[in-house]
């Protein structure tokens, strides 16, 4: 068993060691194994049995999923069953086995090639992607040719899931069983549905590994380091030991963080701050609360649109929002209306390709173009507001006119619900995200039109500094502590407070201990972030005195560069509070 390491993107922190379980996988043979003509009948029977086993498995999975997660998810297995029953597929197999006197494996491999080419030649992306469905079915038959007991193994033991790609439906099925120690996948990125699901379920995951599914076999031992994004295949004893100690350290750190989560959110001089969570899936609410979140500061509603190939109905929206509102109650839930368009495009939205998506038709601009879609979402949010803990947040506002238009639509929708005698929270707060510098500069005017504001620092900084942080040539310019950024953010926070309105920061600045301390210095009290960062921010803010921070930050604002500010703040804060940045190993 060869020992080697692979690098990918760690998308869900944590470390796990275990045995590989390959799912799907490009296991199709490239060797044509011949058999004698009298053996052909036996080979056909072997294939038939494998198909029967496959049918049994698919039917069972379909029923299980239907029960556990609803018809939306089980439908995919119905499609798989139909693929399995396809006559042309069966005649392909038979023709190849009989015609070439070869093993069933070779026939499956040939059929796979044929359909792969067929689907890859299609110009429509949706139909091209259906390749994964036929691959899934063929791989299942292929596996069933081998051993009868595979199914049991599949379901019982704890394993590390290795796959070329994991469809959202598949990921949900596999992870919901609770016997997956970790995940390693060829494809995918930080925001893939699988990554989000893994994070919320606390399963370490590394994606973007290119070809791990071809490099490992079932039964190989794997270490998945979701924190550093590394995979170690068949580690020798010494490395195993090293990783056991790393795992222990990580687990201890995690425990420590959980302890912090239960402590009160007060600075040393007892100034109250409120950590909130940014989430993308309803499944994340529990985890967020257990990590110390005192509300959901940002629910990104995009995932509702990514769930299916058709547009979501009011009911689809409502069931998600009411679930989150219930689970988070009595804590507040800020539901951001959809931020689609730009790079997050979907075929069903019919948005033209744009030369400059970051500056194009996205978020509220898109919602105000497709008003019917927007109203469906507003209605669902209103209906979910009965517990009075729901707020509406509008992304990417550029000018006052947009806010006025949104308010008009909002009023229309409220009237509509009233005539239908549907109850909702009449005083549901409406807020806007400040992400566009133009909006930031008119905070004093905007604030009069809304109940609260939320600063999306990631986009705001990119737009303000004219820097695409994913562009390696200019990303060095992306500095949250750039004096101009701090001046702008300070202006927004102070303006909101002067008007007596609530203000939240929900970008990465809120999750970085140093930036968070600076924000506290501006008077910010609500910090919304990826839930896994809440304990470390809580720890940092609990270890400082508000009045010291305020004084230090005020002085820092007279400095000229991001670096000077960083050094000055760290030095002065540490002088007074030596423990402020003592975070142990940071996730």
């Amino acid at each position, binding site marked *: 068993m060869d020992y080697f390491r692979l690098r990918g993107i760690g998308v869900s922190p944590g470390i796990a060691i275990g045995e590989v379980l390959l799912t799907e996988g490009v296991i199709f043979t490239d060797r044509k194994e011949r058999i004698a003509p009298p053996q052909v009948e036996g080979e056909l029977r072997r294939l038939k049995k494998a198909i029967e086993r496959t049918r049994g498995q698919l039917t069972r999975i379909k029923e299980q999923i239907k029960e556990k997660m609803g018809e939306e998810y089980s439908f995919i297995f*119905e*499609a798989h069953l139909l*693929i399995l029953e396809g006559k042309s597929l069966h005649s392909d197999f038979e023709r190849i086995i009989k015609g070439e006197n070869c093993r069933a494996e070779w026939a499956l491999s040939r059929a796979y090639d044929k359909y792969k080419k067929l689907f890859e030649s299609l110009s429509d992306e949706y*139909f091209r992607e259906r390749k994964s469905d036929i691959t899934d079915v063929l791989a299942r038959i292929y596996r069933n040719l081998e051993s009868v007991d595979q199914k049991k193994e599949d379901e019982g033991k704890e394993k590390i899931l290795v796959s070329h790609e994991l469809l959202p439906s598949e990921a949900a099925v596999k992870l919901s069983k609770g016997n997956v120690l970790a995940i390693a996948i060829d494809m995918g990125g930080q925001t893939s549905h699988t990554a989000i699901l893994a994070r919320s379920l606390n399963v370490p995951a590394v994606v973007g590994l290119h070809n791990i599914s071809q490099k490992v076999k079932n039964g190989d031992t794997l270490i998945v380091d979701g924190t550093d994004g590394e995979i170690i295949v068949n580690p020798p004893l010494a490395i195993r030991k090293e990783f056991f100690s790393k795992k222990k350290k990580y687990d201890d750190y995690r425990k420590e963080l959980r302890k912090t989560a239960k402590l009160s959110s007060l600075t040393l001089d007892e100034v109250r701050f409120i950590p909130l969570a940014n989430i993308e899936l309803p499944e994340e609410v529990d985890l967020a609360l257990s990590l110390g979140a005192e509300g959901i500061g940002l629910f990104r509603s995009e995932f509702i649109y990514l769930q299916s190939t*058709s547009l979501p109905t009011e009911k689809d929206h409502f069931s998600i929002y009411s679930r989150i509102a219930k689970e988070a109650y009595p804590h507040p839930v800020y539901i951001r209306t959809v931020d689609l368009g730009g790079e997050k495009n979907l075929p069903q939205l019919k948005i033209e390709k744009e030369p400059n998506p970051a500056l194009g038709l996205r978020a509220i601009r898109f919602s105000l173009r497709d008003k019917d879609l927007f109203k469906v979402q507003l209605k669902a949010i209103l209906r979910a507001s009965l517990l009075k803990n729901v707020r509406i947040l509008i992304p990417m506002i550029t000018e006052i006119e947009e806010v006025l238009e949104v308010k008009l639509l909002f009023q229309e929708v409220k009237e509509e619900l009233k005539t239908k005698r549907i109850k909702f929270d009449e005083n549901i707060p409406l807020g806007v995200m400040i992400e566009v510098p133009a909006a930031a500069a008119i905070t004093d005017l905007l604030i009069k039109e809304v109940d609260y504001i939320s600063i999306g620092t990631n986009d705001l900084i990119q737009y303000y500094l004219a820097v695409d942080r994913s562009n390696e040539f200019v990303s060095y310019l992306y500095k949250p502590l750039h004096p101009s950024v701090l001046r702008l953010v300070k202006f927004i926070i102070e303006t909101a407070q002067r008007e007596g309105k609530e203000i939240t920061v929900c970008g990465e600045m809120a999750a970085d201990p140093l930036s968070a301390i600076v924000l506290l210095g501006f008077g910010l009290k609500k910090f919304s972030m990826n839930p896994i960062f809440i304990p470390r921010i809580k720890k940092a803010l609990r270890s400082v005195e508000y009045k010291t921070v305020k004084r230090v930050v005020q002085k820092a604002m007279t400095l000229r560069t991001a670096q000077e500010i960083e050094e000055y703040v760290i030095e002065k804060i540490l002088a007074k509070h030596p423990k402020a940045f003592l975070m142990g190993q940071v996730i």
Partner: protein
Amino acid sequence: MLKKKITVKNKLGLHARAAVKFVNLASRFGSSVKIEKDGAEIDGKSILGILTLAAVQGSQITLKVAGNDEEKALKALVTLITNKFQEKE
């Protein structure tokens, strides 16, 4: 044999979910069902065949139904397509 030219009107075309419905309905009849699009003809009872047609919204397809219950079958399938597969759009 009966033939009928028809336009796929639902937003997503003959996508997987629609194809499942089509195959399930077609399989209820004894008649053979073929779909022709741009010169390619496939078995209307095969989901793979339907998916490889890549019939998006606005595609013109021809249904060819032959057998004892061809009239009933054609009527049912045409209704399914014109009703946009009962999709909530």
